[in-house]
């Protein structure tokens, strides 16, 4: 899908508009505009358009987006990671236990969580590559096992399933503003999200590793034949998804001041959904990080937007489901139109 702008007689000249229309993220951008317009019209006079309202949905989108960036890259490389949600719970609990129970400094607790996540990511990747089992199954197993370990160990150590008191325990720590501070009234997690998305886009579009990622997901055998280290690419991306979950855990635990054993439930599905809305194919080999960024944005807007509409929240999930379906249908429609027009 990578289009180059160099003048080469082998490459057909494509108009700027058409080139733009065939980009994978286009539909997600259009979908985001659609969703934004919907809430601006329905709930514009009730605070959705204010600075506070914008920060409210951007923060929710950012937290999902931090994980969605590597998840979308991994999906482009042809694999799933269903264990990211459980990883958020496990890493968050590790940070909370470290600070409040073991008396570790905050940096050590976060470092421990990141190292733990990296090891879990390595394990996921190793099992997938060595056994040739589908990553869906391997990481599904990890989803259950990690959640169970989190519940078991937390109960064993504290005889509770929820730990709080992080606000007072980490008060004045220089790491706090990095994960849970604000910049110009906006939560710092938004910056994490945008920076990660920028790095992800650069890697995918401008580096060899990005080409390898497309190759690994598109046709792994062909890619191997031309010398792409498919296993190494996948392994690296499994580590990235797990570490991003630990990063989100640090952001969330410090922002919320507490951790509980069920944190992050269903996050894996939201990250996959956001990637798909963003134009990533479930089968791999196609997609973009910018699309995933807008996918997460749509999710955040829908999730928080409903509070602005004042609709009875009994219908909340219906609303989320329909909005997502509409976004993806719209996504497909645009893509089809664009490819027909070629």
């Amino acid at each position: 899908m990578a289009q180059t702008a160099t003048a080469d007689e082998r490459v057909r000249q494509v108009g700027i508009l058409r080139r733009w229309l065939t980009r994978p993220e286009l539909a997600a951008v259009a979908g985001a505009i659609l969703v934004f317009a919907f809430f601006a019209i329905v709930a514009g006079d009730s605070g959705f358009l204010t600075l506070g309202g914008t920060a409210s949905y951007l923060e929710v989108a950012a937290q999902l987006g931090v994980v969605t960036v590597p998840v979308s890259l991994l999906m482009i490389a042809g694999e799933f990671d269903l264990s990211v949600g459980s990883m958020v719970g496990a890493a968050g609990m590790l940070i909370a236990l470290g600070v409040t129970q073991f008396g570790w400094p905050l940096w050590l607790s976060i470092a421990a969580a990141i190292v733990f996540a990296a090891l879990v990511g390595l394990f996921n990747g190793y099992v997938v590559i060595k056994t040739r089992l589908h990553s869906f199954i391997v990481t599904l197993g990890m989803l259950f096992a990690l959640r169970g370990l989190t519940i078991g160990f937390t109960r064993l150590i504290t005889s509770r399933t929820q730990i709080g008191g992080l606000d007072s325990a980490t008060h004045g720590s220089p790491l706090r503003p990095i994960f849970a501070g604000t910049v110009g009234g906006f939560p710092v997690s938004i910056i994490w999200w945008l920076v990660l998305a920028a790095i992800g886009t650069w890697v995918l579009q401008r580096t060899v590793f990005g080409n390898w990622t497309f190759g690994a997901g598109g046709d792994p055998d062909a890619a191997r034949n031309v010398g792409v280290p498919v296993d190494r690419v996948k392994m690296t991306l499994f580590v990235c998804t797990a570490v991003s979950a630990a990063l989100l855990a640090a952001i969330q635990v410090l922002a919320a001041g507490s951790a509980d054993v069920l944190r992050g439930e269903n996050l894996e599905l939201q990250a996959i959904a956001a990637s798909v809305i963003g134009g990533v194919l479930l089968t791999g080999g196609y997609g973009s990080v910018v699309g995933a960024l807008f996918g997460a944005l749509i999710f955040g807007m829908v999730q928080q937007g409903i509070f602005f509409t004042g609709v009875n929240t009994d219908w909340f999930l219906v609303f989320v489901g329909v909005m997502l379906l509409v976004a993806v249908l719209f996504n497909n429609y645009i893509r089809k139109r664009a490819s027909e027009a070629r």
Partner: protein
Amino acid sequence: MIEDSAERGSFSRRDFLKAGGVGIAGAAILGAAGCGGSQQGSSSKSNGKQGLVSRGDIHIEFISHGPASDPFWSVVINGINQAEKDLGVSVKYRAPDTYSVPQIQQNFDSAIASNPSGIAATVADVSAFGPKVKKAVSKGIPVVMLNAGLDAWQKLGALNYVGQTEYQAGVEAGKKMAQSGVKSALVINHQQGVVTLDQRFEGFKKGIGGNARQIAVNGNDPTAVRNGVKTALKQNPGVDGLLTLGPQGALPTLQALKGNNRIKFATFDLAPEILRAVRDGRMLFAIDQQQFLQGYLPVAFLTTYVQYLLHPIGVVPTGPAFVTKDNAQKVISLSKEGIR
């Protein structure tokens, strides 16, 4: 003074109560038991009088629908363990990892088959587990019901019932909030679809006089809860009271309310941060159903029944108890230990 027949399986407790509560036969048997007990006196392990059996021989089966991973049930189990230690009896806790009717039915069957001295049971589904309780009773095993099955315990022939009705707890919470001057309240439901949470809300709505609205949030995402509550408050400027239905909703809500002294805030269930907030006046009250007692008391009641044929009649409510500014400080350390 309360007695019951030794042939407890042959007729239901309700009939017995109708017959006057104090059966002459029961009194006679109890008297005989007292004598018999003093003659046995073999075990030195048991505390107090020996009674019909020694406490070391008492084996109680605790059949529950609550998984140990749940913060609520982990406190119940801590209560059971304490009772076991205090009374010198042995208790086996049986519960499925996730709610499963067939598995709980099997737990009943194997518990009954183990021929226990008594059974403590939560009857979360009367039509599924009621027949099992009846079976145990008809085999002569005394049963104490707790936590769930309030409407059925007499019909099933259980000795008594220990617990709180969620609806009633909600009513009390609503009244208390109305007393503090709240006119219009918002209720934050962190886990939509859980029956007990809906019962709490319905009760609260009645208690406060109808002016309450429920908002559902995703309790597993604290950021979404915090921002959702903030937005909902902006949307409903007339609201002056907030109730969360559990700690998962309460902790992010505390953050959402930072710097907002106008809103009166209360919650169901305890956590150390909630207690600190109550102590510091950031929260009005926290509703405690004292579930430690739901583990402790059934074991104690079955022990005194098996030993002396003594047990309280009727429903023993464990809640709602209110934690307020006055008593929050004392409860904080207990909450950390998993007792409150």
